[in-house]
C-alpha cells in the first residue's frame, strides 16, 4: 500500500443528533501519514464529526470509508472528562482496553501482550503510575494513559478529541511531541480536534475548519495565516511592535 493512499474518505456526510442536523454535505479525504487538525468554535460540530467518523454516532446521510473500503485499524482518544469516574480502573487496566480490538472476546492476555502494554506505557511516560487509580491521576497523566491505550490497538489512524484541553503547557507540549513522533516515525495518520491554534500550527500540516455550518479545508500555513484568521474569527490582532 503506498504512503499516499487514502485512509479515510468522507462523502456527502450529514451529521447531527436525532432530528437536528449540524453539518451536511461534508466531503474530504485523508491520506496515509497526514496529520490533520479539526478546528471550529464551541458547538460547531467537531466532536459530533469525529464520533460519526469512528462509528459511535450514526450518520444522517452520506458515507465514511476507511482504507479505501477495506477498513483499517483505528483508535480513538476521547475527551478525558467523558469517562466515568465510577469505575475503579488502574491506569494499566485502562491501557489494556486497547487490546480488545485484537483479541477474541473473553480471551486472556498473553505474556507478549503484557510486554506490549508495558512498552506503550513507557513510551507515553505513564509506566511510573501504572498501578495508580486512573480517576486519581492529573489531567496530563490521564491523557498519556489514553494515548497509550490507543497505541496498543496498533492504529493506522489515530483520532483524538481535544487531547490537550485542560492540561498545563508542559504536559500539552509533551503530548504534542509524542503525537508528532507517532506521525513522523511510525507513520500513524492523525486526525485531531483541538482549540489551541499554536499547537495546531506546530503539529498539523492540514486543517479542517468548521464554521457557520461549512467546512474549510486547507494547508495549516494558509488557513492559520493572520489575514485568514482575522476573517475567520473576525478578530483584530494587535501589531507585534505594540506587544
Amino acid at each position, binding site marked *: 500500500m503506498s504512503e499516499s493512499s487514502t485512509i479515510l474518505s468522507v462523502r456527502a456526510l450529514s451529521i447531527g443528533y436525532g432530528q437536528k442536523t449540524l453539518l451536511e454535505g461534508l466531503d474530504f479525504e485523508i491520506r496515509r501519514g497526514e496529520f490533520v487538525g479539526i478546528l471550529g468554535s464551541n458547538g460547531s460540530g467537531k466532536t459530533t464529526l469525529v464520533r460519526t467518523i469512528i462509528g459511535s454516532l450514526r450518520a444522517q446521510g452520506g458515507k465514511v470509508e476507511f482504507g479505501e473500503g477495506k477498513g483499517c485499524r483505528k483508535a480513538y*482518544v476521547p475527551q478525558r472528562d467523558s469517562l466515568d469516574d465510577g469505575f475503579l480502573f488502574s491506569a494499566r487496566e485502562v491501557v489494556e482496553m486497547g487490546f480488545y480490538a485484537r483479541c477474541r472476546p473473553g480471551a486472556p492476555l498473553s505474556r507478549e501482550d503484557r510486554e506490549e502494554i508495558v512498552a506503550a506505557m513507557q513510551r507515553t511516560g505513564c509506566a511510573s503510575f501504572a498501578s495508580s487509580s486512573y480517576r486519581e491521576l492529573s489531567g496530563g497523566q490521564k491523557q498519556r494513559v489514553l494515548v497509550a491505550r490507543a497505541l496498543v490497538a496498533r492504529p493506522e489512524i489515530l483520532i483524538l478529541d481535544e487531547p490537550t484541553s485542560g492540561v498545563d503547557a508542559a504536559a500539552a507540549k509533551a503530548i504534542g511531541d509524542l503525537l508528532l513522533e507517532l506521525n513522523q516515525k511510525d507513520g500513524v495518520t492523525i486526525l485531531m480536534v483541538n482549540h489551541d491554534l499554536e499547537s495546531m500550527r506546530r503539529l498539523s500540516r492540514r486543517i479542517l475548519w468548521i464554521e457557520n455550518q461549512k467546512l474549510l479545508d486547507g494547508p495549516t500555513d494558509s488557513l492559520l495565516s493572520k489575514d485568514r484568521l482575522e476573517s475567520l474569527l473576525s478578530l483584530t490582532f494587535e501589531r507585534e511592535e505594540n506587544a
Partner: protein
Amino acid sequence: MHFFQDLFNEGFLLWNSLILCLLVGLLCPLFGAFLVLKRMVFMGVALPHISSAGIAFALSMHVWYGDYEGAHGADQRGLAIAGAVVFALLAILGVAWLEKRRRGQADSRIGTLYVLATAGSLLLLSKCQPAERGWLSLFKGDIIAVSGGDVLLSGVVLGVLWLLLLIFRKDFYLVSYDPEMAASIGKKVVLWEMLLHVIIGLSIAASVFVVGPLITFGFMVLPVMTALTVVRSMGGLLLCSTVFGIVCAFVGFWLAYEQDLPIGPSGVSVAGGALVLAAVMGGVVRRLWKK
C-alpha cells in the same frame, strides 16, 4: 447456638432455603456491580418489582377467562417463570433503548414503571386469592418452603449467567466505560450492551422467581455499595462484593433462624448494617489517615 446444632441434624428442614440464600449472596453481587457501575441502581430497585409483576400477570391470566381456580403445579411454575423473564427483559431493553434515544428523564421513567408494577401486581392478583398469597410471601422474601428443583434451576441459571458475565467482563467494562473507543476499535457496542442487559434481566428474573424482589435487590446492590467503601480496584470490588454477599446471607439466615424472623428481610437488614458499618469505619480510618 441452636442453629449450628440443628444444621448438622438429619432432620434440618431448611437446607434448601439456606443453599438458596448462599447462592443469591454469592452470585447476585456480580450482576449488581454492573448496575452500580453503570449508575443504574434505581433500575436495580425497579426491575425486580417489574419482574415480580410479570409473575403476578402470569398467575392471574386464568381469571380473565373465568377460571378462578387457576393453573397448578408445574403449569403454574412455568407460567411464573415465563412472566418473570418476559417482563424483566422487556423493561430493561425498553429502558435502555429509550436511554439511547435520549427520550425523557430516565429516573422518572423507571420510577413510574416501579410504582405501576407494584400497583398492577396487587390489582391483578386481588381476584385470585391462592396466587395472591404465594406472590405476597415471595414479595416479602419468605423463602422457607422452597423446593430442591427450584434451588437447582435457579442455581444453574444464575451460575451460567454469572460465568458469562465473569468471562466477558472486560468486554462489558469497555462498552460501559468508553463506548466511543469500543466503537472505534470495531466492537459491536449495541450488541454487547444488549447482551449485558439481557444477562442482568435474566438474572433478576431467575432470582425474583425463587427469592422475590426484596432479596434480589438487596443482594445485588448492598454488598457492592459496601465493597465500594473499602476497595480501590475492579478486581477488589468483585471479590469483596461476593464475600460480603455470602457472609451477609449466612448471618441473615442464622439470625432469622435463631430469632424466628422472616429470612429475606433479615438478610437484607444484615447487608444494610454492613454497609453502614463499613461507611462509618471508612470515614474514621480516612480521618485518622489524614492526621
